[in-house]
């Protein structure tokens, strides 16, 4: 499909008058997918989602239908669906727009997914900062109860479901699925050691599926238009890689940083970072060039200008040394910006948000920040560069030293910044240069 002919799917109703209301959603064909699903067997819904190739939009890209099949077959008692609306990855805001502008699309996806997984309660974990989303969702949920779209015997099908909104309290770690579950249960959000995975033992020690908001928004469209339609968009499986699950469907790309038009763009998966910046974000601001670009949220690391033709699908960013596609949040950094300052900001973020449970992460994120502080004060040594790399190579699930992936996310910006911009770090240290520190802004 030619991207210029692409008509937005997930953002199709954004900007229409009163797009948040049940009346307008229904007028646009809303909840027809739910009615259709409720007439199918729940396993048929799972098969349809599996065949569509939909992969989770929250960052890891795990196939959604496959995740659902991990639930035990003969469960007695409740199954839970948790919606991960703790969107906090720097650069990412697609869930916010989806919920604020079209809450019923997300909620319809949740009801269908709950039906497919046989969940009878869905908990929508929403970050506290999204107050407008919270109020839009609560209003939409109330409308659904009043119209037999939630509660007992939904649309006469015999299926019962409750959706409860649960607000977080400003902690990045709650976006990690088992951290989210602990937080939902009223505890500190310390991620759990896996296994057991949530499908076996999740919320309240019951079988649980945790899905992202954008993933939910895709579901009604897959039910309405079918798996083949979904696979007509995006990048097919790599025939030379039997483990590749393809990158199908529409994707929301968040663009921020040094571009003329920051914003949210929906496109078939696989556009290059360069086309995204030049054709959809008005190019780099002030007539400058991009020095570095983050492909999918801060924890994915950096691409150089020479790597900008990389397709932003599930495989592209990995081929140029980044951690992956992540949340498809593209942050553009212009050529007048110091990578030392950028990396310092990144390390400080992860040090602030490390939950403190695992020593390599807690200490590694704090020490990498301190080393960069020293460099920025003009007191850095050339050996600091290798020390930063040693830290980055020693923390995370990929060397196998931590419970969750936060430390990998902290390590990738360091690895990619130093591997790709080492000369800039060396020059900075040798010159004895100092970055302007805003004293008050550093306080905490």
């Amino acid at each position, binding site marked *: 499909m030619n991207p210029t002919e692409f008509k937005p799917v997930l953002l199709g109703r954004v900007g229409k008058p009163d797009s948040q209301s049940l009346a307008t959603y229904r007028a646009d064909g809303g909840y027809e997918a739910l009615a259709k699903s409720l007439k199918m067997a729940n396993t048929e819904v799972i098969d349809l989602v599996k065949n569509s190739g939909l992969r989770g939009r929250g960052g890891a890209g795990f196939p959604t239908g496959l995740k659902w099949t991990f639930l035990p077959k003969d469960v007695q008692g409740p199954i839970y669906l948790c919606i991960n609306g703790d969107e906090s990855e720097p650069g990412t805001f697609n869930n916010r727009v989806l919920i604020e502008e079209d809450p019923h699309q997300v909620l319809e996806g949740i009801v269908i997914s709950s039906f497919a997984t046989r969940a009878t309660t869905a908990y929508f974990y929403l970050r*506290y900062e999204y107050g407008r989303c919270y109020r839009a969702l609560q209003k939409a949920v109330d409308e659904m109860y009043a119209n037999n779209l939630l509660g007992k015997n939904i649309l006469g099908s015999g299926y019962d479901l409750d959706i409860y909104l649960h607000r977080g309290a400003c*902690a990045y770690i709650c976006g990690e699925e088992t951290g989210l579950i602990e937080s939902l249960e009223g505890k500190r959000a310390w991620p759990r050691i896996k296994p057991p995975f949530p499908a076996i033992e999740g919320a309240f020690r019951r079988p649980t599926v945790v899905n992202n908001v954008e993933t939910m928004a895709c579901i009604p469209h897959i039910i309405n238009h079918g798996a083949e339609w979904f696979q007509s968009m995006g990048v097919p499986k790599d025939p030379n890689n039997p483990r590749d699950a393809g990158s199908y469907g529409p994707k929301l790309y968040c663009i921020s940083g040094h571009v003329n038009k920051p914003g949210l763009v929906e496109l078939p998966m696989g556009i290059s970072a360069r086309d995204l910046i030049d054709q959809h974000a008005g190019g780099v601001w002030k007539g400058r060039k991009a020095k570095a670009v983050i492909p999918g949220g801060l924890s994915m690391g950096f691409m150089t200008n020479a790597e900008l033709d990389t397709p932003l699908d599930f495989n592209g960013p990995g081929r140029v040394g980044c951690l992956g596609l992540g949340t498809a949040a593209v942050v553009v950094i212009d050529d007048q910006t110091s990578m030392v300052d950028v990396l310092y900001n990144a390390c400080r973020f992860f040090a602030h948000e490390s939950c403190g449970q695992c020593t390599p992460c807690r200490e590694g994120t704090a020490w990498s920040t301190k080393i960069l502080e020293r460099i920025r004060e003009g007191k850095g040594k050339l050996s600091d560069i290798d020390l930063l790399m040693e830290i980055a190579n020693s923390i995370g699930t990929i060397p196998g030293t931590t419970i969750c992936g936060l430390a990998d996310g902290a390590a990738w910006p360091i690895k990619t910044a130093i591997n790709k911009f080492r000369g800039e770090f060396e020059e900075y240290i040798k010159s004895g240069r100092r970055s302007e520190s805003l004293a008050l802004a550093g306080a905490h």
Partner: protein
Amino acid sequence: MSELSENAKQVIAEHLPRYPSKQAVTLPALHVVQQERRYVSNKAMEEIAELLELSPAQISDTASFYGFFRTEENPLGQKRIWVCRSLPCMLRGGEELLAALCEKYHIVPGQTTADGKLTIELAECLGACDGAPCILLEDELHLRCSLEDVERIANEPNAPTKKA
């Protein structure tokens, strides 16, 4: 005298049937108390613990994990404004905005003005990078903010407290 208001007790009671464990009502309870009082006192935590059949230490453990909840010794001002300092906002002046705001009100992030009107906090990514630099007033995002915008927001009369 009870530290929890009737409204807070009612909100807690309304949340209990939603979860299979009483402990899951911890965050909703902490939210309603802080929204009403601008802090969560030890006494409030004890009372929440009693309602949720937990030890006060369990409530305190959760409350102190999130930098969000304030103790009685360090209450919030009438308004809380968070200024984002994460990368997308930093690239477009977020740190300068935070520094200018702190200078204007003579406080550092985390502190409250002497008249008790305004608390300024630094925030990690608020999820509004399309509108960098952005701020959060209580739980409402404001995008593309200049210092003048934030001052105007800080000086607007308080909206009536919303029910949690």
